């Protein structure tokens, strides 16, 4: 029994503890920007976790996943603009609309596989990007400022940064828990089975298309929630939220952390965004370092950070 005390588990528990205690640290040492930074990281980790569900477990490499961040964000932004500030309305709408779009995009895209799937999801994301650019009434290219965060019943106040941080954190944990339940269920087994051999799964009698489509829609819905949170976080939505490079960032987070592992997306999101923050502190041209670094990760660190931690265990 190597037990629970593996290097990987220690790192993950340490990270989770760090995330739970961060607001205390930031209050004691008076560094409020940390809460803002980590709220963002946690929200993007949710989006990455939803991408991991389809990409890591289901083998569906979606290069347009940021589009659901945009849809969720715009749902909140548009409802706020039309003076429906209630979060009880905004958030379910964000989730439902994202799920609906994921259904339509999924039905079309899942007819294809491999590199076609990558490019087609990218092209659909681009299509919706142009829709957002064309939303003249809601700012078009310039985006839309949200003057009021989503309203909930009285003790919950999203304008309070610490509260908002903990809401995000709890939702992230819930999503990771949901992913865990999903992938260990019969449904998850079918998804993973169709990832390794779709033909065989169909031969056994599973209608894998329906399973994959359901998985795709769940991922879209979760990502839509992340979008609703991000809109509340930045108090601003714009087409840039669903630019294709954002989708690329999400893929980077998943792969960097460790694809097909439960905590990989969270680790990847923390690693990427902290790295961005650190590098941009060193030089204005930080992407010149980040780009080759990504290439190195692809070439030498298969399985990402989680993979590195699990490997070489004596």
């Amino acid at each position, binding site marked *: 029994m190597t037990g629970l005390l593996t290097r990987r588990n220690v790192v993950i528990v340490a990270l989770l503890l760090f995330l739970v205690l961060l607001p205390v640290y930031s209050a004691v040492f008076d560094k409020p920007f940390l809460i803002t930074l980590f709220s963002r990281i946690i929200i993007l980790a949710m989006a990455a976790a939803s991408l991991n569900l389809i990409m890591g477990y289901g083998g569906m*490499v979606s290069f347009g996943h940021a589009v659901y961040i945009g849809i969720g964000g715009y749902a909140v932004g548009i409802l706020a603009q039309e003076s429906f500030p209630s979060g009880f309305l905004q958030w379910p709408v964000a989730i439902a609309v994202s799920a609906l779009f994921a259904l339509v995009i999924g039905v079309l895209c899942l007819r294809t596989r491999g*590199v076609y799937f990558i490019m087609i999801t990218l092209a659909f994301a681009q299509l919706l990007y142009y829709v957002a650019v064309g939303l003249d009434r809601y700012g078009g290219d310039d985006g839309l400022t949200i003057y009021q965060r989503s309203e909930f019943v009285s003790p919950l106040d999203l304008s309070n940064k610490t509260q908002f941080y903990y809401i995000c954190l709890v939702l992230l944990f819930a999503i990771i828990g949901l992913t865990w339940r999903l992938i260990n269920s019969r449904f998850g087994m079918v998804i993973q089975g169709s990832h390794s051999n779709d033909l065989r799964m169909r031969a056994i009698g599973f209608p894998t298309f329906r399973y994959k489509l359901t998985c795709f829609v769940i991922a879209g819905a979760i990502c839509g929630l992340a979008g609703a949170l991000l809109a509340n976080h930045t108090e601003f939505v714009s087409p840039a939220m669903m630019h294709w490079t954002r989708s690329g960032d999400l893929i980077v987070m998943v792969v960097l952390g460790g694809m097909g592992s439960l905590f990989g997306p969270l680790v990847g999101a923390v690693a990427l965004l902290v790295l961005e923050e650190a590098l941009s502190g060193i030089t204005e041209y930080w992407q010149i370092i980040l780009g080759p670094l990504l290439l190195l990760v692809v070439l030498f660190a298969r399985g990402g950070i989680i993979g590195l931690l699990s490997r070489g265990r004596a």
Partner: protein
Amino acid sequence: MLLFLEQCLNGLQFGLLLFLLAAGLTLIFGIMDLVNLAHGSFYMIGAYFAATFTLLTGDFVLSAALAFAATLLVGMAVEVIAIRRLYGRNHLDHVLGTFGLILFFNELVRLIWGPAGMNVPLPAWLNTHFQVLPGVDYPTYRIAIIVVTLLVALLMYVLVMRTRIGMLIRAGASNREMVSALGVNINLLYTLLFGLGAALAGLAGLMQAPILTVQIGMGENILILAFVVIIIGGIGSIRGAFISAILVGLIDTVGRGFLPDVLALLLDPRSASAISPAMSSMLIYLLMALVLVVRPEGLFPASSR
């Protein structure tokens, strides 16, 4: 009617430019099984090289030739340093690795050329109009683009289908090990092929340079259009890329030209002018969705793969 003809010519010219990008992408994918997102970066680099050489020499045609050669060299260097290590990996690795290259090239260009865009002046003899039909004037430079791209397409066909190098490339596509066992330096061949693909993208970029502003990120939007082209045409098929590039070019350009008028007939003018730019950007994606529903493998799926 004259306007329509002019728009069609514009569409043809844009489509042929798209073909230059799509041909490189689909060739590299069809033969090396590599998804190259950084293809748009070569488009950008070609345009920047052309801008710089024009500033230095003052001769656009000479600069274009120099920029073409320089992009070829950059492409080959990138293949040797980075891309070579990605062969045989899965497509996700390609996407990520070349996404990293995009970030790198965008930042490198910002570092070298600065964040401001550049403009490339046309020489006087190209900056004229040409009478296509009696009463129809069309810019000489755009005619030149159409002629050059058609020539390049023809040359490529001859190179791949009618020469010894082309034969080796096709042989390498079907069985890499066997070709290399027969004593052919397949690595060099792949480097050359990748360089050629990059140079074609560079050519598209440098020819667009006098028409558009040369700026960072210019390669990315057109890259996605090139993806759409090869999805519609069928990945790996040059013939499919050619036909669908022209189709996409025509639909995009003519749509942009006439959709506002069509919408104005159906809607009130204010909302028509508000939604038509977004609608025309969406047209080709709708076309792609349609093709996908009818033929998921594209219009002309490559037979070899």
